[in-house]
């Protein structure tokens, strides 16, 4: 929904756009100053990730056993670091953004031990969406 007015795709191309709508292409698209650049960023990110993701999956499936424990390379720290880097520009955008971020973090942290994996993130997002639309 965030991307639809930006990309303005019509007809059958929407089927492809839907497949390409992932965290990375969305982040790249919304970070661009103009709609023109946003469209370009979306399609190129989608294309690059589609190719690299599938190639790397194939390579990994064939040879990952040789590497051993991925946390040895600090890869587990990369995931939260990447999300934090994506969040940063929004934190600088205003006080409401910062309050929502703190709220989301607190709700998610509180739910970790009492709900199945995945639920904390969804619940935090839903709760704040509700609060934002009512406030």
């Amino acid at each position, binding site marked *: *929904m*965030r*991307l*639809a*007015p930006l*990309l303005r*795709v019509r007809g059958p191309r*929407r089927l492809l*756009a*839907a*497949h390409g*709508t992932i965290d990375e292409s*969305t982040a790249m698209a*919304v970070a661009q100053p103009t709609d023109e650049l946003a469209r370009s960023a979306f399609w190129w990110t989608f294309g690059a990730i589609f190719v690299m993701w599938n190639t790397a999956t194939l390579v990994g499936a064939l040879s990952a056993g040789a590497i051993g424990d991925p*946390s*040895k*390379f*600090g*890869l*587990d*720290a*990369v*995931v*939260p*670091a*990447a*999300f*934090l*880097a*994506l*969040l*940063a520009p*929004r*934190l600088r955008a205003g006080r*409401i*953004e910062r309050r*929502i*971020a*703190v*709220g*989301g*973090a607190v*709700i*998610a*942290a509180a739910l*970790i*031990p*009492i*709900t*199945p*994996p995945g639920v*904390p*993130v969804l619940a*935090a*997002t839903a*709760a*704040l*969406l509700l609060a*934002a*639309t009512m406030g």
Partner: protein
Amino acid sequence: MTLWWLVIGTVVGCYVLKLAGYLVPPRVLEHGPTRRAVELLPVALLAALVVVEAVANGCQYDLDGPRLAGLAVAAVAVWRRLPFLLIIVVAALSAALLRLG
């Protein structure tokens, strides 16, 4: 076999959800409060993801020193406005170096 049906069901569900976003009429999206909510949604989502990825392992808290140190170094890098790739590299390097010992 049941697992495969679950996988297929999830795949179809995710795709339909993404497609739905493009099928919403533009008029709905230009509506002020909807627009605001859609803009704020990723903020809550990303903040929650940072926390869950940092301190959770399944349903348990998992406070891993090197991982948290990597995230702390990344936070400083974000604050200093380093480029995205550099942030990722310093996070991984800090965690990896701490695990060497």
